[in-house]
Structures are given as C-alpha cells and as structure tokens.
C-alpha cells in the first residue's frame, strides 16, 4: 500500500488536533506517514502513534525553521520524490496552503485547497469543498501528479488507532532560494487558556451588538469550554484582536456549536462559520440575517441573556 504523507502541524512538539484529522483521512487512502519537521519529535511521538501513523519521517535540522515556507516545501518535495506517495495532506491555514501551492508546482501535481472531506475513489481520491460562503458543495479530483490536498480543521472526527510510527530520520540541503525570506523574530501567541479558535468544538462569538464589552461573551465561552471569536465589525472597532476574527478575511471555523451574539450575519461573516454543525444566535434585531441560519435564536439583550445563561450553566455543573 502506498504511503500518504501528512505534514505534522505542531508547536514545540505539541501536535495540533488537525494533524489527527489528517491522519484519519490518510488511513482511507493508504498508509499514513507523518512528516515531522523540528527538534521535538520525542514530544510528538505518543500522539502520532495513537492516531495511526505507520511511519514518521523526521527532519530535525533547525535551519528548516529559520526561513519562511520554502524549506518545508523542499523537505516535502524530497519525500515525494523518495517515497512516491498516494497523496500529501496538509492542514488548511495561511502557511499550509502556501506550502501546498509551491509543492504542487515543484512536483507537477494538482492542488486542492480547503477540502472538508477526502474519500478514496475508483479513479483516485475525491475531495469535497464547501464554496461561495458554504452555499455550494464541490466534489473534485486531481488529474496530474501526486494529489496535494489541504484540509480544513474539524472536517472529520479523529480516530484513535495504534500505528507503528517507525521513525526514519532524513535531511536535505536547502537551496539558496529557500534562505531568502528569513524569520528574524517569532512571538508565540499568549495563551488565553481557551481552546484554539479553529480547533474548538464550541465557539462563542461577539459582534457590533456587544458595544465593545466582551466580558459576558468570554464568561459564557468559559462556562461552555469554548473559544471566543469576533466579527469583522468588532475587530475593526478595536474591541477584539484580529487573531480572533471569524469570516472571509479572518479564520474559518466549523465547530459543533457556534454561538453568534450581537452579530448581524453579513456574507463576510457567514463565509467563516456557515459550515458549523449547530448555530445559535442572540441578537436584539429580529430581522438580522443571522436568524435565517440559526437552529435556535433568542431576540433580546445579549449581555443580560449571556450573563443569566452563564449562571445557569455553571449552576448545572455544580
């Protein structure tokens, strides 16, 4: 069976949930082979084993992390050449899509971005994408080279299955071109103690209707163990950092539950959350378009509703 390469997304060896999802998709297509770039494979090994990686390629040269994007592309291109995989799966996201783009050109391969499903088909893999703000489902395949696919977070429930995780250490010589965009500083985002926005099972988001006060949004999110998001209007007003923006120009989220509070539901916002499994809206305007999408809606003042709901949820938890 052919290998399916999965680029491991990690922070200091702590593997992100999206990698477990990619390994789950990879198992449908062939033998999952994780590609770990970094020095901390010790930290990652348990995770990769428990989600079914049969092989783990390790590239530990620190120089690979000193420059933007291209070193990772050259590492993957080397492995594509060496192992002729059935596909390469990479997490969707700014960097992931850029790596995939250059890898596709380098290896003469078709590229599909932002897949929400990946299946093995008779004539090669078949992907599903959700386009035009989630209004149209597109199925597609790759006709040239090794399929390079980026997959959106939360597209599949990760399956815990033991893999052999046989390690193979390899190294490459970086081209001069790969050393032209140097990362001169890297500041990890300060932890909020909440789940990461794109990975979270529940997201509570606030918009213009918060009036700039996110305290009740954050308190309700914490009661539910949720991540906090914000609409573009709230971010543009300076009420919440851009890193938490949900929508076309921010993050795309697809949680089990999305709670939109004080958000009208403009197309730009819907593009970032419309594929959420369950949508709840709280807004004082009954005519807000968000109610057209919501499985459940409450018309009223978001601060008093969220504050009361937070108390009730916390009381239930005892």
């Amino acid at each position, binding site marked *: 069976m052919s290998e399916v390469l999965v680029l491991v997304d990690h922070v200091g060896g702590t593997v992100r949930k999206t990698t477990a999802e990619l390994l789950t998709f990879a198992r449908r297509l062939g033998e999952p082979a994780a590609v770990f770039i970094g020095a901390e494979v010790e930290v990652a090994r348990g995770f990769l084993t428990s989600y079914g990686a049969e092989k783990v390629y390790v590239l530990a040269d620190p120089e690979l992390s000193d420059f933007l994007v291209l070193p990772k592309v050259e590492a993957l291109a080397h492995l594509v050449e060496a192992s002729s995989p059935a596909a390469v799966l990479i997490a969707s996201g700014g960097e992931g899509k850029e790596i995939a*783009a250059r890898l596709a050109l380098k290896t003469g391969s078709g590229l599909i971005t932002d897949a929400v499903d990946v299946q093995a088909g008779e004539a090669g893999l078949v992907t599903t994408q959700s386009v035009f703000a989630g209004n149209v*489902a*597109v199925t597609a395949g790759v006709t040239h080279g090794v399929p390079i696919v980026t997959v959106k977070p939360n597209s599949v429930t990760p399956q815990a299955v033991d893999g052999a995780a046989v390690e193979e250490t390899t190294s490459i010589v970086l081209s001069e071109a790969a050393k032209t965009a*140097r990362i001169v500083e890297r500041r990890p985002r300060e932890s909020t103690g909440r789940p990461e926005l794109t990975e979270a099972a529940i997201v509570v988001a606030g918009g213009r209707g918060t009036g700039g006060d996110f305290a009740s949004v954050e308190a309700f999110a914490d009661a539910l163990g949720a991540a906090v998001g914000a609409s573009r209007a709230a971010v543009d007003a300076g009420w919440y950092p851009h890193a938490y923006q949900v929508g076309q120009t921010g993050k795309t989220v697809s949680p089990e539950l999305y709670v939109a509070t004080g958000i009208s539901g403009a197309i730009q916002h819907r593009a970032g959350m419309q594929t959420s499994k369950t949508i709840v809206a709280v807004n004082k305007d009954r005519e807000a378009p968000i109610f057209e999408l919501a499985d459940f809606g409450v018309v009223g003042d978001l601060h008093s509703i969220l504050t009361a709901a937070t108390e009730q949820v916390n009381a239930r938890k005892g």
Partner: protein
Amino acid sequence: MKIAVCVKYVPDASARRTFSADHTVDRAAVDGLLCELDEYAVEEALRIRDDADDGQVVIVTVGPDAARAAILRSLQMGADSGVHVADQAIHGSDAVGTSLILAKVLEQQGADLVICGMASTDGSMGVIPAMLAERLGLPQVTLASEVVVKGSTVRVRRDGDVATEVVEATTPLLLSVTDQCNEPRYPSFKAIMAAKKKPVETLSLSDLGVDAGAVGLDAAWTRVVSAEERPPRSAGTVVVDEDGSGAGTLVDFLVHQKFI
C-alpha cells in the same frame, strides 16, 4: 522603484454566485468588481511608491474583457498603468495555469516588488502569491499585516494561528498583504477623471509566448466532478426574550443538544 500589483476581477460576493455547465464560475450572471482584498495590495503599492524617490505602479490582471474594470478601479485609486491579459483559451484555468500567465507578464515587467492580496473572494485559495514566488524564483514575503520598506529591505509582520513572525528579505521580492495592512483610499472625482487617460495594455497569450494548450480548463491539473447547491439552512426556533426567560430556553436547547 517599479511595483507590479496582481489583481482579480471577481463576482460580487453579496450576489447569488453560481457555476456554469462546465463547473467554472458563471462570471456573466453576476456583476463583477475589483476583489476587495486586492484593494489592500493596491493601497500598499501606492504608499510604497509615494515614499520612494522615483516609483511607478503597474496593475496586472488576467480575465475576460469585463476584468478591465478591476484595472480601471486600481488606476482610479492612483496606480500608473495596467496590463490586461485576455484570451478565450484562458477560460477555466486553475491556479497553476493562472500563475503561469501572471509569471510571464511579471517577467516582462521586471518589477522590484510584486504585490498581491491575501486571497480572492471567489476562489479563496490564497495560493497565487506563493506560486508566483515559486515560478519567478523571488523571495516569498506573504500574508503581511504590517510592511516596512527601508531601501531594498522589506520587513513584515505575519500573524499566524499560533505565533506572530517578523520576516525580512531584500528586493526584488514577492509580497502579499492582509486586510490588516492599511485602509484603502476611496478615489476622488479628480482621480477618477485622471484614470481615463492612463495607459492599459491588452495582451493575448501569443503576445506573451504562452502556449494556449498549457492553460485553460483542459490543461488544469484538477477536475471538478460536481458542484451542487446545498439546501439552504432552514431557520430554526426563535424566541423573544421579553420576561427574562430567554436565557433559560437557550440553556434548555443546549442541554437538549448535549452541549452541556
């Protein structure tokens, strides 16, 4: 300093966008316009030009005849000239084909700086900047939310999911910018009038020396099998919180759905 900005003419996102029978985006059925995210690229180019002693900004687009409107809008914002690649054979090109055509234009232009938006609002792949860097062999400095140019050095802030990075390279290079980078200007009446006199060159594939068989739907490395509208989400229950009972019904819903 010569700056080239790649822009896209896209169907209006607030209209009902659909696919044609060949599974390409139906660009005739919906009004189009300059991609909103490309306005940030044009604005950044204008700022860099205005800070340089001797600068010019050329706008490059690939698309049907109507795509000229995206160039015109950029010229109204203040760009100096435009190049429009239009050819029947381009219809249905994927990102691989489109980047091939753009790269040919950019090779001819020989710009010190190529600037792109972060993604289009229709395809939203966000891969053209990286593909252009690959094809042109230029340093890739992308997804910049803050740009500082000092002589031939470009330093940017790039906000990732888990970290913020500061990236530095020297020109010539390829830059892409996010919507956090600046506030695009609105063209004045005077600028709109002045734009009418600015030169726009129209090129075919043969003008560029691009083989028509290398681009278009049949040459794409991916194939769309189907494109189906999802059934619209049906609106669910909406309650009005008149007597303070809204929170209780909300929590009941979440309990019933097993979120609590």
